[in-house]
């Protein structure tokens, strides 16, 4: 009789241990997903912010109208692009910004005009934050994908219905400073 009890106790212990383990893994995946979503929101905010600063610069009357048009068009494309075209449109905005800011003496001329230096600072910050936010987001994607590739999450639906996250790949090289 005591042997049976011992077996039951052992079994119970194993079940409890398994439960705790699975729940721990599930929590971890859940935490990774939360981190992923936060990173995604941060990336979206950074991209929207960059487009907004580009539009602000375009509308500032500090630039010649050709440059304004170019920036406005690129920023507008980036803002309205659907998820299929987002990466292309954001890369195009990066390229347009480089083409504009890397012109000879662009920074000097803009800085010499009223509000120019402040806008340029805003732009540099916004551009930089896009590449930071993208790096953080892609790190979160890597971690989440790695966790979900393990055996347990593949056997048990620990991730719920969350889709496998995709990397966000764009050309976000900043203009020369």
């Amino acid at each position, binding site marked *: 009789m005591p042997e049976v009890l011992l077996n039951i106790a052992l079994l119970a212990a194993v079940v409890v241990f398994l439960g705790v383990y699975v729940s721990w893994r599930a929590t971890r995946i859940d935490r990774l997903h939360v981190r992923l979503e936060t990173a995604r929101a941060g990336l979206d905010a950074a991209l929207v912010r960059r487009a907004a600063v580009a*539009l602000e610069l*375009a*509308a500032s009357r500090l630039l*010649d*109208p*050709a*440059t*304004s*048009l*170019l920036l*406005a*068009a*690129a*920023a*507008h*494309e980036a803002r*309205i692009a659907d998820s299929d075209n987002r990466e292309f449109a954001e890369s*195009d905005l990066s*390229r*347009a910004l480089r*083409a*504009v800011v890397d*012109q*000879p*003496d*662009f920074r000097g*001329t803009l800085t010499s005009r009223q509000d120019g230096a402040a806008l340029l600072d805003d732009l540099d910050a916004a551009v930089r934050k896009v590449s930071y936010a993208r790096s953080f987001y892609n790190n979160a994607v890597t971690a989440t994908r790695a966790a979900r590739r393990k055996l347990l999450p593949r056997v048990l639906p620990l991730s719920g219905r969350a889709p496998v996250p995709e990397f966000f790949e764009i050309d976000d090289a900043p203009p020369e400073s």
Partner: protein
Amino acid sequence: MRIGIVCPYTWDVPGGVQQHVRDLAEALFASGHEVSVIAPADDDAPLPPYVVSAGRAVPVPYNGSVARLSFGFLSAARVRRWIREGSFDVLHVHEPAAPSLGVLACWAADGPIVATFHASFERSRALSAAGPILQSAMEKITARIAVSEKARRTLVEHFGGDAVLIPNGVTTERYAMAEPLPGWPGDDCALGFLGRMDEQRKGLAVLLRAFEILGRERPGLRLLLAGPGDADEVRAKVSPELRDRVVNLGLVSEADKVRALHSVDVFVAPNTGGESFGIVLAEAMSAGAPILASDIEAFRRVLLEGRAGALFPVGDSGALAVAAAELLDDAPRRKQLSDEAKTAVRAYDWSTVARDVVRVYETVAGDTAVVETSAS
């Protein structure tokens, strides 16, 4: 008259607008006007005496493709100086809505300004974003010309107002006679394509897919390509066994372009849209090349609903293959299309077109006023 013409795109890169400006300038010279053209150009590019360089254009993404445009403070200063020194009776700006020299010229000038709109879009997102920035430039334009019904509709949609319609011209005699390239078209027929190879709406991909079918059915058929673009990328899209029958000339001179048009049995224009007139079509017509073109509105109009060139459904490579096969097997039909095309294209000859443009100049030019630089 003293006429200042502003070309927004790099002079030495082939393109519809550049060609238009060159031919217009030469037709104006021929009728005794004084013309100066300002255009972006590379430093070492050979320019005709009437062209002033506004500096190098920068490749930049715009409206869905990469355009070489001239913008920035430096270009603006050059345009302003050119206007000040030119004392033109009329300033003729091309494509003033593009972020390049056109809008800079409108910005810098006061006086009679004529603007020609070339591009047509279903709905240009770039233009809708540009509204407020363009407004003051657009308000300065005295007379507006559209090169096609579609370009005119685009203009009306985005900026309101209207424009007079004066189509593109073609210097037809320049294309009429030429020796085919050595060895072309050969005994087994050849298809031809002219245009940017990396620009999706020029439709090269549609033609290459059709050639996958045609090339297998007809072991001797060859395809002649000419135009700027990455040759390796094009090559990669062709099956290995067909590759030696696709000849890519790359970017060719004007003279070789004409010879290429005389080197093929059927000239294919597979454009998928965005084309307002299709100068390339009019050139092929002048050369008397039998044409097979996609059934976009602009092409249908130029080809007289199909009488001056066969049409196939846009983007349908299967239909292209069938239609091309029919033409390749029917020499009398090709001859008939060629003759019809040569007749139809006369309406687009530059001498006819430039006369209308001069009438526009005369309508807006003042007796004494000249174009000056604006205060702002």
